[in-house]
């Protein structure tokens, strides 16, 4: 039997890696992938606690999270496509039109 903590540790590691990735990578596509990583870590937490508590709510919310992740990916990738059309780059540092 796998203890909840084990899963939580895995989830924590994935989350951290996702955050680190968002911090160090300037490639928009990689950053989006890191967001997915973080959402997955969150899902792991939901599932682990759902099992721990014997409550299905966690699983249901994981479904919602996956849905949101899909929506986020669609929007994010749409932004990337538009960005590349406009500026021919996927580097976030070069996208500073809003900085005034």
């Amino acid at each position, binding site marked *: 039997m*796998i203890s909840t903590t*084990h899963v939580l540790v*895995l989830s*924590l590691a994935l989350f951290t890696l996702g955050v680190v990735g968002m911090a*160090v990578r300037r490639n928009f596509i990689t950053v989006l992938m890191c967001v997915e990583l973080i959402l997955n870590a969150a899902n792991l937490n939901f599932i682990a606690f*759902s099992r721990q508590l014997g409550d299905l709510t966690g*699983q249901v919310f*994981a479904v919602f999270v996956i849905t*949101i992740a899909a929506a986020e990916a669609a929007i994010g*990738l749409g932004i990337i496509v538009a960005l590349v059309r406009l500026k021919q780059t996927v580097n976030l540092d070069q996208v500073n039109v809003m900085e005034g």
Partner: protein
Amino acid sequence: MTWFLVHFAQIVFYCLAAVALAGAVGVIAFRSPVHAALSLLGTFLAVAGVFVLMQAEFLAAVQVLIYAGGIMVLFLFVIMLVKARDIPDEPQYVRRLVPAAVILGVLLAALVGVGLWAASSGPPADGAALRLVAGAPLGNTEAVGWSLYRDYLLPFEVVSIVLLVAMIGAIVMGRKETGRGGAA
């Protein structure tokens, strides 16, 4: 020998966790977005495996179906569409964060160690309760379904609207005219 069978789930878990972590590291380590996407795919599949171990088979299937079959394909599609074969080098300022990262990492590792030690003595979790909804033993899929469509119908509808909005948004942004200052 029977030890192997008894602890089979744990062994599988550790293998999957290793794959998931390696994949996650790959995501931020690989320079090529395609390689990063592939290693992220590995992470997703491993996490799906963990879901199965956590008696969430339905979610595992959904994870594979949507993440692996949908989202990552979309990622690859866009990577190929924008031809992002090589990406610019990392900016320098990240280097300055290295000491802070090391300290944080050590602290985190200590925390994890403590947590693991504590967990080894904790009570084992049991997923049997998951199968009991309304008193009758049901499949995981069916149970999630009941819960989703009865208790969480409103959030479900809201999420579907979010998806719809996202879809329209993606279409609007992906359209050619936006680049020429047309709509949006």
